[in-house]
């Protein structure tokens, strides 16, 4: 849905639609994934340590379950702080100044490299 390279020209109307659907930008997605992994691992370590020290398996499970719920709330919804680096689309006029390279030219270059 939002995998078009930035050099593709799109009408301003389409651009608005993309912008509205792009609820999380690339850097936001990367941040969300890393945050999810770090938070879950941290909660697991804390939960295991707490359960072992207190001698309670139930405490470990409850701590970890709480951690998973909290991590879900932080990283799963489309929070605005994951959308601080919106894609900069080129203007239609700008794109026309730099026409797309011809397909057969690029394929020749690739084969030459090999």
């Amino acid at each position: 849905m939002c995998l078009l390279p930035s050099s593709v020209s799109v009408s301003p109307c389409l651009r608005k639609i993309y912008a509205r659907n792009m609820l999380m930008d690339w850097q936001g997605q990367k941040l969300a994934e890393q945050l999810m992994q770090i938070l879950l691992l941290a909660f697991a370590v804390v939960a295991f340590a707490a359960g072992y020290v207190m001698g309670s398996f139930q405490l470990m499970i409850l701590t970890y379950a709480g951690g998973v719920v909290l991590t879900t709330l932080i990283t799963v919804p489309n929070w605005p702080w994951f959308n601080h680096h919106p894609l900069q689309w080129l203007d239609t006029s700008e794109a026309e100044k730099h026409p797309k390279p011809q397909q057969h030219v690029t394929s020749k270059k690739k084969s030459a490299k090999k």
Partner: protein
Amino acid sequence: MHSFGYRANALLTFAVTILALMCAMASLSDNLNSPSPSAQIQILNFNWFQKQPHGNDEVSLTMNITADLQSLFTWNTKQVFVFVAAEYETTKNALNQVSLWDAIIPAREHAKFWIQTANKYRFVDQGSNLRGKEFNLTLHWHVMPKTGKMFADKLIMSGYRLPEEYR
């Protein structure tokens, strides 16, 4: 990671993987526990001792079981199953085991106990080899964990002897 569903799926998968790891570690942590259980069994009386019509010996006895199994419990223990077996040797079989009594211990608080009981299950031999027979009373236990590996061990108490005559 671009949509709600993708992130929810990734989170759930990773969370469950870590949970499995934590359970494996909890099971491994049981190996750090070195239990030192103790038990004594006293036979108070042979209530009766007879030969069944078809030829098998049967005994009824009353015993006093004292045990402290608290050290078997760790944070990962669900319950402990214990049973007392009479073990003896006959010409036909090197080891005969007859379960006399069993119990499930649900928590550490109940693991130090004293009980006076007749045999819960019938003490019947396969044949008539029991007169004057020397036997062991063995306390077996199975530690059932919340997750992971089950442990089993036993404590052998020897030096018991059945009466020479039926009564």
